[in-house]
C-alpha cells in the first residue's frame, strides 16, 4: 500500500488532538478543571468515538488556531469559520452550523446611539470595538469599519474584560457567544444583530492542509449526519443551558 489515510495514523497514535480556543457556547473551558465543553467540543468527542480513539484538547488562542494546525500541533481545530483566505492555508469540513456576528455593548454607554441598528451607526471615531484577534469576526469587522478603532485581543477572556472594564465600547463576537454574555450580565449588557448582516459563514472543523480528499470526506460524512438528524441543534441547546446554569 502506498498511502495510508490520515485517520488511520490517528488511530495508531490512539488520540485525536483537537486545538481549542475559547468561545462559548462553541468551546468552553472549565477553569477549575481545565476540561472542555461546548457543542464543538462535544462533536469532537463524538468523532473520536467514531475513530475509537481518545480525544485530547490542546489549549490555544484564536490567534494561533490556524498556525497551530499548520504546525501540526493538533489534528483538527474546533469551531473555525470557513473563509476563502483561511482555505488557502488549511482545509475545512462542511459547516456544522451557520453563524452571524453581533455587537454587544453597555446600554449606558453614551457613545452608542439608542436606535443603533447597523454597523454604520456605530462606526464613529472614538468608538473602540473589541474583537478576538484572528477570528472570522475580526476579519469581518476590520473590513466593515472605517472610523472606529478595532482592538484585537488574544482571547474571549480579554475581549469581555475589555468591555467590562470599559476599555472598549463594543464587543464584536459570534451572536451565540454574545447572547451568553448579555444573559449573564443582564444589568448592563445588550447586543444587536446589525442589518445588513456582517457575515454569514459556516462554522466547521479546520483540517490540516495536507489531508487527502478522502480523509476530508470522512469528517464531512460524519458531520452531515449529525446536522441532518438535528443532533447538532440538541448539543447547542445543551451547551447554552449549561452556561446559563453556571452563571447563576
Amino acid at each position, binding site marked *: 500500500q502506498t498511502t495510508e489515510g490520515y485517520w488511520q495514523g490517528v488511530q495508531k497514535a490512539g488520540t485525536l488532538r483537537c486545538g481549542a480556543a475559547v468561545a462559548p457556547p462553541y468551546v468552553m473551558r472549565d477553569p477549575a478543571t481545565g476540561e472542555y465543553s461546548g457543542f464543538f467540543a462535544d462533536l469532537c468527542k463524538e468523532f473520536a468515538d467514531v475513530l475509537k480513539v481518545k480525544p485530547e484538547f490542546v*489549549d490555544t488562542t484564536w490567534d494561533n488556531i490556524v498556525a497551530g494546525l499548520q504546525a501540526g500541533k493538533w489534528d483538527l481545530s474546533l469551531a473555525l469559520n470557513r473563509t476563502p483566505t483561511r482555505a488557502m492555508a488549511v482545509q475545512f469540513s462542511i459547516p456544522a452550523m451557520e453563524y452571524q456576528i453581533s455587537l454587544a455593548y453597555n446600554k449606558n454607554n453614551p457613545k452608542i446611539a439608542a436606535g443603533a441598528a447597523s454597523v454604520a451607526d456605530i462606526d464613529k471615531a472614538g468608538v473602540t470595538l473589541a474583537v478576538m484577534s484572528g477570528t472570522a469576526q475580526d476579519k469581518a469587522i476590520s473590513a466593515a469599519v472605517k472610523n472606529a478603532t478595532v482592538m484585537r485581543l488574544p482571547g474571549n477572556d480579554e475581549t469581555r*474584560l475589555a468591555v467590562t472594564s470599559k476599555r472598549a465600547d463594543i464587543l464584536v463576537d459570534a451572536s451565540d457567544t454574545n447572547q451568553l454574555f448579555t444573559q449573564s450580565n443582564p444589568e448592563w449588557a445588550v447586543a444587536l444583530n446589525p442589518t445588513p448582516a456582517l457575515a454569514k459563514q459556516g462554522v466547521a472543523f479546520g483540517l490540516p492542509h495536507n489531508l487527502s480528499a478522502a480523509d476530508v470526506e470522512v469528517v464531512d460524512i460524519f458531520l452531515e449526519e449529525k446536522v441532518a438528524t438535528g443532533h447538532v441543534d440538541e448539543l447547542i441547546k445543551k451547551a447554552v443551558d449549561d452556561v446559563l446554569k*453556571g452563571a447563576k
Partner: protein
Amino acid sequence: MTLDFSILLRFENALLLGLWMTLKLTVICIVLGCTLGFLVGLMRTSRNLALRAASGAYVEFFRGTPVLIQLFWIFFCLPLLLGVELSNMVSGVIALTLYMGAITSETFRASLKSIGREQLDACVALGLPKRAQVVNVVLPQAVLRAIPTLLSNCVSLFKESALVSAVGMADLMFVGQNISNNTARPVEVLTVVALIYFVIAFPLTRAVSLIEGRILKKLAI
C-alpha cells in the same frame, strides 16, 4: 466598586493546577537552561573562532529579541521548519530553555572571567595537571561565584514563564484570565495571581542577597 475575594475559593484547585504548570515549566527549564548555559559559556571563551561566533550569535539573538516573539516563533515556526510535531509542553520547554541558556551563559562567562589569572598561574606553579586545574580550581570557584546571579536568572525565568499563557498554555496566568472571564471578577483574580507570583519570587530575591553576602565573605572578593 466592591471587591469580593471569596469567589476565588471556588477556584483554589484551578489556581494550584496553573501554578503547578508554571513551576513544572520553570524547574525543567532551569535544569536544562543552566546546563545549556554552562556549555555555551564555555564555548564563548573557547579558542575556536567558529564555536565562539556561533555561541555569540545565539546569545545575542536571544538577548536581543522579546521572549514573546521567541515563544511565537518556536511554537509555530519551528515545527514547520523541522517537519516534526511538537506538543505545547515541549515547545514551551524548548523556548524557555533557549532563553534561560542565553542568560545563564552570560552569567557563567562572567564568573569564569572573574577568576583571576593569578589563580591559573598558581596552578602552573604547583604543577597541577590541566584536569585538576579545571576540576579542582576553576570549576568550583566559577560555580560559587555564579550562584547569586543564577538565582536571579531563575526568578526572571519564573516571571517570563507567564508569557506561555499567550500561546495558550494553561499556566497560572492563563488559568487566572480564564477564571476572571468566567466570574467577571478580573480585579480580584488578577490581583491574587499577581500576589502568588510575588509570594514565590520575593523570598527568592531575598535569598539571592543573603547568599551573595555569604559567598562574597567566604571568597573575600
